[in-house]
């Protein structure tokens, strides 16, 4: 497995790609915060926020539907919000009987449900765009510039750096289990569910020992290459004038959404 097998970065040249990672992190967070602050049913503001997202897609040279195609990851979670359809008082839209409940969908409930879905759908797309236009190590570096404690950013950087090594290890463990799980035709291999969970647990224990021992070797190898407790990067990570201007403009636009949403 390649070391950046997990990165969602899409390598291309664009205005957004060239922006400093800090700018992208700050604007993404401001955008998500703004969505959370918009009132239920602020359709015009939601529409403008969507246009903002589409323009960011275009400016990033990835195609206008880039984030749309990947935006449904959060959708299964909508299940937990279904109850607001029935539990918020309001005018009845439709009543029906489900198993042993009498349910009434109210207009206020529907308004809230749709608003929650839109907020979630817009926010997740901006987060997708962030990791598509900045390399993950650069995002971690940006977090360090934004005063996230360095012990935490270093742990995250190591997590990311060695994940592919350990996932390779997991694949070896899974292949070994597969190879030993033969079964006669028509028979099921393996024991009870509890037994299978126990096997998975032993594999996790094995993975722990391998990771633990590997961390020693990793540390020694890093010392040999001059590690002093700080991770360096060859990217300059300097804020240029275009970075300041873009941040200011984006934040003003996002504030404008708030104003529109409260009209």
């Amino acid at each position, binding site marked *: 497995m390649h070391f950046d097998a997990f990165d969602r970065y899409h390598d291309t040249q664009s205005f957004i790609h060239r922006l400093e990672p800090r700018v992208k992190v700050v604007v993404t967070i401001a955008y998500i915060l703004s969505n959370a602050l918009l009132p239920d049913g602020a359709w015009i503001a939601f529409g403008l926020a969507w246009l903002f997202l589409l323009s960011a897609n275009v400016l990033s040279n990835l195609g206008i539907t880039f984030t749309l195609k990947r935006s449904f990851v959060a959708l299964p979670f909508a299940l937990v919000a279904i109850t607001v359809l029935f539990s918020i008082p309001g005018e009845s839209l439709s009543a029906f009987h489900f198993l042993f409940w009498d349910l009434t969908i109210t207009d206020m409930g529907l308004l809230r449900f749709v608003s929650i879905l839109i907020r979630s759908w817009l926010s997740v797309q901006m987060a997708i765009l962030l990791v598509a236009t900045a390399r993950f190590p650069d995002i971690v570096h940006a977090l360090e510039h934004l005063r996230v404690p360095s012990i935490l950013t270093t742990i995250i950087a190591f997590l990311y750096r060695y994940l592919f090594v350990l996932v390779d290890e997991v694949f070896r463990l899974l292949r070994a289990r597969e190879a030993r799980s033969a079964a006669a035709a028509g028979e099921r291999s393996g024991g009870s569910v509890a037994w*299978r969970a126990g096997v998975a647990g032993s594999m996790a224990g094995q993975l*722990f020992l391998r990771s633990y021992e590997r961390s020693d070797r990793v540390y020694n190898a890093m010392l040999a290459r001059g590690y002093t407790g700080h991770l360096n990067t060859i990217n300059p990570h300097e804020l240029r004038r275009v970075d300041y201007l873009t941040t200011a403009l984006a934040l003003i636009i996002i504030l404008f959404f708030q104003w529109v949403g409260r009209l």
Partner: protein
Amino acid sequence: MHYSPAPLHIPDGFLNISVSLVCWALTVITLSVAVSRTNRSLGEKQVPLMGIMASFIFAAQMINFPVAGGTSGHLLGGALAAIVLGPWAGMLVMTAVVAVQGLLFQDGGLLAMGANILNMGLLTVAIGYGLYRSVLNKSQATRLTVAGIAAWLSVMAGALATSLQLWLSGTSNLQTVVIAMLGVHAVIGLGEALVTVAALGFILRTRPDLLGEGSASAEGGRGWVVAGIVVSLLVVLLSPFASADPDGLNRVAIDLGFIHVGQSSSYQIIPDYTLPFLGATPLSTILAGAIGIVVVGVIIFLLGQGLKTKS
């Protein structure tokens, strides 16, 4: 790739602004105690170790086992991380895992990440380590049994906290979400318990030194036992209450003034949840929230001090 989202990661949009920010504040305060504690007690060598351990938890979540009908279970890892790495390191490691899941895989939101870290990284570690710490010097069988119970409870605690946050955000009906979440996670938690116990058993058989005297696993103070038991009791007492008598919890929430958070949508400014001299403005709500955060922060800081002096 084997990455499969777990049902506890709350995406953005499902928590309202007050709940998100309060959870972020609780998380940041707890983490800053964890950062200062680990910075003081660990050498530079431990940071790469913790990073690789975070990688380990992430990768271990990919080891799945078939359950039934095409579904499969896998480890979540909070209790295991706490027991093998010690409490503060366990918290930082689980935080890194949740942060990467949210940032890189969009499994859990960014604004909701404070809540996600709290539910899956901090509560699970407090229960997992606290209960295990209470039987640290007992026989191996007792330790493994308690570790299993702690793993199950830690999953339930995460599920209960998630349900309560969704309810307080006005996203879900209290009774429905609590019963559904706890029901599903009672089963997921069984898998978690079995995997955690088997993993610990394997480590005890092959490298008992990693869990014995003087290891990270034994470094937490006795204060953790209290923390673990208190959080566990809250889960045990609150779960049946919330699922069987939601009106009761509503009444408690009214008495404590929480319910306004629960009933307000993300923007409505409820007069009782503002500062009188500023009137009903967003600034007032934010300040009211900030004051609440400071109060909670002081409590957690004092708790942290207590845990430190006892260790």
